[in-house]
């Protein structure tokens, strides 16, 4: 414990509600415009290959459309557009992550489209931190923290704010 208290980042880490102190959590990482991002693996219902969706009139640009998830109507969100990046043609690597999202009014199921799936990243207080120092060029409200996965940096996303669609 003494070692952690000496760590200047520890105070900041306590503020991160997505990361439990000392407790390891697992994140599913994926590629998006060359960078690695990750979401809490416990929120991921399933991973699907991309399939054509039905456009919803009057929807925000980042809502790609509706798909049929075994009888449920599920909206899918283009994560590149949501985070303000350039769009890219969907290809065989494009993947849809079906997420459980918690809102005040109840839980919903929403899919996110990402470039490609990477791996499972384990985080704990030693290899993750909050990210106030650098500009990630995406909305800070979406970011839960940064994880160090060996040589590369993984941006951890907050699913609930990320998918709180402004419809």
């Amino acid at each position: 414990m003494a070692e952690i208290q000496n760590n200047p980042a520890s105070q900041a880490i306590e503020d991160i509600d997505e990361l439990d102190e000392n407790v390891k959590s697992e994140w599913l990482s994926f590629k998006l415009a060359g960078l690695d991002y990750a979401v809490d693996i416990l929120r991921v219902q399933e991973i699907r290959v991309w399939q054509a969706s039905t456009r919803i009139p009057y929807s925000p640009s980042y809502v790609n459309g509706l798909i049929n998830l075994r009888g449920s109507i599920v909206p899918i969100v283009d994560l590149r557009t949501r985070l303000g990046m350039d769009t890219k043609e969907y290809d065989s690597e494009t993947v849809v992550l079906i997420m459980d999202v918690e809102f005040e009014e109840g839980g919903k199921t929403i899919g996110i489209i990402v470039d490609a799936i990477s791996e499972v990243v384990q985080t704990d207080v030693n290899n993750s931190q909050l990210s106030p120092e650098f500009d990630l060029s995406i909305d800070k409200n979406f970011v839960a923290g940064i994880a160090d996965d060996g040589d590369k940096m993984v941006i951890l996303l907050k699913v609930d704010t990320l998918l709180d669609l402004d419809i």
Partner: protein
Amino acid sequence: MSDPLERFKAVFFDESAEAIDAIERNLLNVDDASDMDSETINDIFRSAHSLKGGSATFGMGSLTEFTHVMETLLDKVRANELSLTQDILDCLFSSLDVLRNLVSHYQFEDEINESSMIEVRSELERLLDPSASSSAPAAAVASAAVPASAPAESATDGTHWRIEFAPDPQIMMTGNDPLRYIEELTDLGEIEVSCKTSGVPQFGTLEPTNIHLIWTVEVKSKEPIDEEALKDVFLWIEDEAEFTFTNLGGAAPAAVTPPAPVAEAPSGQTPVATPEVQPQTQATASPPATAQPEKKAPAQAQASKKRASQSIRVDLEKIDSLINLLGELVITQSMLSIYGDEEKYPQFERLSEGLSQLERHTRDLQEGVMRIRMLPIDFCFSRFPRMVRDLAKQLDKSIAVEIIGENTEVDKTVIEELNDPLVHLVRNCVDHGLETRDERIAAGKSETGTVTLKAFHQVGNIIIEISDDGAGLNTERIRKKAIENGVIKANSQLNDQSIHELIFAPGFSTADAVTDLSGRGVGMDVVKRNIRGLGGTIDVRSTEGEGTVFTIRLPLTLAILDGQLLKVGTETYIIPMLSIIESIQLKSADINKVGRRDVSFKWRGNFIPILNLAEVFDCPMEQDQLIESGLVVVVESDNKHCGILVSELTNHQQVVVKSLEANYDKVEGLSGATILGDGSVALIIDVGALITRVRMH
């Protein structure tokens, strides 16, 4: 719901609602025939009795007390001590309201309406009382029986009781073990038990599952025991055994036979039922039956017949998940049906046979499952005779209610949503539609007005008609009122029908005086909104002096919709068949333009607005393309028409309606989504919203 007691309570609440409804239905029957048959009154008594028993079990004191008084009165009627006068009937009707209030108090923690409870209760007691002076001998015993416990307690200290306990021979068959009740007495004090075996038959005739024993239990306690506490122990089996409670704590032994003390008295049985007479009474079961054993037999037969046709309660969620699953099956089936095309795949002849069979079974299954959700509309209609009766009394009108087609089946959700609009319509009929007696006689009609509720099926829809034979809508008054309230302009030219439809306009009311029944002006437009929310329509036809008919047209179910698939460019949308009038081919010259915008076209002699779906939903295509194709679907909602431009009409099929709100949000102009045969999602158009939208522009 995990607490078992809670679960039993829930069942009790369900049952008590049923019991109250049953009493009401029976009372209405009596009312109609103005005489009563013993079967009906027995039925009423049984319902009240089970209500009392159940409420006592769950410690709902007020309910038990109240039903007890009611039961006492009913019992006298049953024993022909009291004749069923109009006073008694009215009082019983008001008691039902008190009961409903009490039940909802315990169920939902509603406020108890104390004043009405006390009022009705004292009325019940007043009705009980005069009989005491009229039928002297019976009343003497009866009145002695009711307060019996009071003097008994004062004369003795209640620390020593003797209980004669003679269970019904068949008691074991109901799952009750007498031993358990005797054991339970040990909670109250020390017990000493002796058993009388003289009733046991010869070994050869002995039925091993029957009980022929009579126990005498003496309970001693340091603290005085209330007689009620002793009775409570046997509450569950009070109808399945004979009891005598004797207080030995002091001198004069006072005894009461518990379940229906007043009934006992006139039946000629002495209050102290000695063991010697019990073997005979055992054979004829519970105490009230001693007076009328042969009446009970047909009653039981009838009861069991009712039970046989009765239903089980199933959580609606379970049915809904079944329907969802079935929707999936329908989709899978239609996905497979592509491969059943024999011309395309001649090598799979057997497969295509199997597929067509599968299709048939799927359709039957779908119909069957949908029917689970269906209830006869009687569930909704049955409350109206009572309501109209009360209102008629209040307004001093003479009104009969006629119900036609009460067995017509409707989706449960539709029935629930239909309740409020129907109440409002019926109230309007009674309050505004039907005239007073004098007015009717003056108009040369019979004194009694009629409100008719009628339901029937018509090509996949259910039609409900609420009509009265009253004065009809007063066209001139409606017109004046509408001008006054600013609903229409003073110079507008409207035909009678259009004026009648003004009653559905928001903020419109013609009642000269605001009554507590209707006339607050929030009525008809809300009714209309509710009906539209169910995907239905309502209209009114009225002839002055002859009456008014409201016609409600609803889809049979909300879960499945009869839809027309159409394409706008590459996108597929669905329009409910219910709102489509026709599809026509227009030349682009037929379409009137204002500037670059397409505005209207002439249809059946009138100009109706035209709507370009590609523009409305901002579809990724050339909007002019639609005009070139000129294919127009004419739709109707609220008697307003509109033409919708589409690129192509495809299938007509039943679709399972899914909500957009579940995972997304409400979308303007759409009422939901569905899944097509190829597994893709298609959006369902809300015609009403589109028409309102085009009118606003």
